[in-house]
């Protein structure tokens, strides 16, 4: 029986008091306990930023790599050992800025990874510059006249890329977020969970209060068909007075790793090589 204690880490947490990341960590642990995930069979891959520190605060296998390069590392891990549960974790700058190209291609590949993006619409670790999801006109030290470009919409990008699981969560709704993370891990394929995460130090616009007044659960009042792509496009565009959270789009399609005969029986990492078997290949060159 896995309990929350099994995910305990002694590493002291280095986030600001009141940071939205605490709630996300709590939701993540709850989801992992709920699905009875063995810590040693879980790998959390992260980049650079405040969110990517998360795997240190859990007991799990962790690869904390470069800014923006989380998804390729996670892809390599999953291909080497597809029996592992692989979660990728990062912020909006890491995932939608520096790692934008990898984001598009990971969705296209449909590798079975759950990608948690702590989206606080600002750069936290570097102390408050505009991010790809900062709203048009958002004033920071690098954008004193306000951000010049409108915010990118990761959910629209994901639906357009036929990402097989697209969801949005909110750090202020821990149980709901835990359910989304569970569904994302259980989903066979690439699962994007964009998480609205208030930054108490550098984002004075999109605060807990600001989000709480706007966020609503997608299927709270009426049923919502997440398999309808046109619906999903419409839902992904909703922003402003009302912000939907929940599963926006899902689709069953083959994962990348299912397409390789090399790992039909067992993971690459468990397969030894006998150099002698290559002698027969030499006939090709004769």
């Amino acid at each position: 029986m896995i309990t929350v204690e099994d995910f305990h880490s002694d590493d002291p947490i280095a986030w600001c008091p009141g940071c939205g990341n605490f709630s996300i960590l709590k939701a993540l642990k709850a989801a992992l306990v709920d699905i009875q995930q063995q810590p040693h069979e879980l790998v959390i891959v992260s980049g650079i930023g405040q969110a990517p520190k998360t795997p240190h605060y859990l007991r799990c296998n962790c690869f904390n790599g470069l800014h923006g390069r989380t998804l390729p590392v996670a892809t390599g891990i999953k291909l080497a050992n597809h029996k592992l549960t692989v979660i990728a974790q990062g912020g909006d700058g890491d995932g939608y800025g520096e790692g934008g190209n990898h984001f598009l291609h990971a969705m296209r590949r449909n590798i079975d990874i759950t990608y948690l993006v702590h989206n606080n619409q600002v750069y936290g670790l570097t102390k408050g510059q505009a991010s790809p999801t900062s709203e048009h006109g958002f004033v920071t030290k690098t954008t004193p006249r306000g951000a010049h470009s409108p915010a990118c919409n990761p959910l629209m990008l994901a639906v357009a890329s036929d990402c097989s699981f697209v969801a949005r969560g909110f750090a202020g709704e821990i149980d709901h977020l835990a359910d989304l993370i569970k569904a994302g891990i259980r989903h066979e394929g690439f699962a994007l969970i964009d998480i609205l995460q208030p930054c108490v130090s550098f984002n004075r616009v999109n605060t807990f209060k600001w989000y709480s007044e706007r966020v609503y659960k997608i299927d709270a009042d009426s049923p919502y068909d997440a398999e309808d792509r046109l619906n999903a496009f419409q839902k992904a565009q909703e922003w402003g007075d009302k912000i939907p959270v929940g599963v926006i789009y899902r689709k069953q399609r083959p994962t990348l790793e299912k397409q390789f005969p090399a790992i039909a029986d067992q993971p690459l990492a468990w397969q030894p090589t006998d150099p002698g078997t290559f002698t027969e290949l030499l006939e090709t060159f004769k």
Partner: protein
Amino acid sequence: MDISIRVGGEAGQGIQSISSIIAKTFVRHDFYVFINQDFASRIRGGHNFDQVRISKHPVNAASGNVDILISLDKETARHDIDCLTDNGFLLFDEDEIDFTSDDPNHLSIPFAQIASTVGKSKIMANSVAIGAALALIDFGLQPVLDCLQEQFQPKGSETVENNQKSATAGYDFVRQNLKAKPAFKMPSAKWVREKMLLTGSQAIALGAMASGLKLYSGYPMSPATAIMEFVASQADRYHIIVEQAEDEIAAINMVIGASFAGARAMTATSGGGFCLMVEALSLAGMTETPVVIIVAQRPGPSTGLPTRTEQGDLNFVLHAGHGDFPRAVLAPGHPEQALYLMSKAFNLADKYQIPVIVLSDQHFNDAYFTVDELDFRNIAIDRGYILTDQDLPSPHEYQRYAASESGISPRIFPGNTKAVVYADSDEHSPEGHITESAAVRNQMVRKRMQKFEGLRREIDPPEIYPAGEAEIVLLGWGSTHGVIKEAVDKLNQNGATAQMLHYSELFPFNHDHFSTKALRKSKIIAVENNYTGQFADFFSEKTGLSVDRRILKYDGRPFTSHEIVNQIKDLI
């Protein structure tokens, strides 16, 4: 006898089909063949050639002289004619190209017309040309007919017959119209299927696969792409995953991920692609993740000459990456060495938990070498210091970056033990958690750099040929092995005492097997395909010896032994 046949024309005209049949014909009869490929960066058109060199003795370099020139376009006839030896022959089809000549050694042969009438299709013109070329060599027609039979058998007996008839007609045409006897003699030989003809790229790929490569990720870039294509062609059979990445950054990060999870992994690229990988090179250094990177050089800077050769990235790969971390740099000179060095690259990467770079170049990657034997039984797989549950007293006691005298800490693979592993690109504690401690920082930097000492001792000595002392020492590295060896032989035949000093394991430099004494009396002459003599500088810095002369070439073409000898004539 040592003859060279050049087939020149536009891309798409079938240069390779001609050169490969001629090459196979001789390899099948126990000859050594070397093909260098010279092509422009385009799919159709341009001026391109394959040059097939044939000898009873091993040949591993291009010749500057051409004995038989098969010209499929006027460009070849007009420009490459300067390479023809005095007794050389030019074969062309004046119906097809705008070129005429009244030199008796310039034979116009109606390739296309013969092909249409005898071979029933204009496509057979290549076989007419093959037959015509063979008619100039006193070797008989049967060997090439046998080779065509073998080559085209999968396409059916009619194709075989049409090709054979075309080759025969080409052969007969030359024999009837040639005023002199066949110009070149080759000792007759029996059909044997022993020798192998393979490219440097294929040797690198074979070496990697036999060393346990499990995941290859790369982004196509000349001249490295053929490595990826060969691995991909064998991937399902040997249980390898090949994934084409969205860019080189993704490629190397995937490789790092796969290696972290326990699979041997590599990528290959050229200088420009390696530029994009450098941030992750440093990541591999910091997280102590084994990776193997092939850098197949081409002339830079920037896009440079995409399909040509250079050894200009040595300084780059030696110094690439921010911060101090150990690495190894290897550079094969011939296919057997490539096989061995790929095995060594993976073993060093795993044992020292470092990035290992294998430097090749377009000339090495694309040239075809004749190889007598490749022995995979010599390949030993050493995965280094890896723990299992049996080695761990408790799953909570494992430290990824535990201190040790060698600097090598134990690895575990995620999921294979009850313990968990934390790897971090930030400076980290022995447990792998982020730290800002000055003391821990010092401990970790020293731990990583301590690995250099063991690594240095793994580096084997350079190849000295022939043994003993010499007045002239030709210093080289990587792909120039064949041509320098040939130049040394020529010099020694001409009364000089010359020697090759060839490095294939470049970095770290191992002082243990190096004595400057013998070399102090010699004239050291560096031979390099770059502008500055990058290895010469490195060698001087490490040995304190001065390099007396530098023979440098940076036009994108490989050296010939003639060019090297010419530049030191005054010393003989």
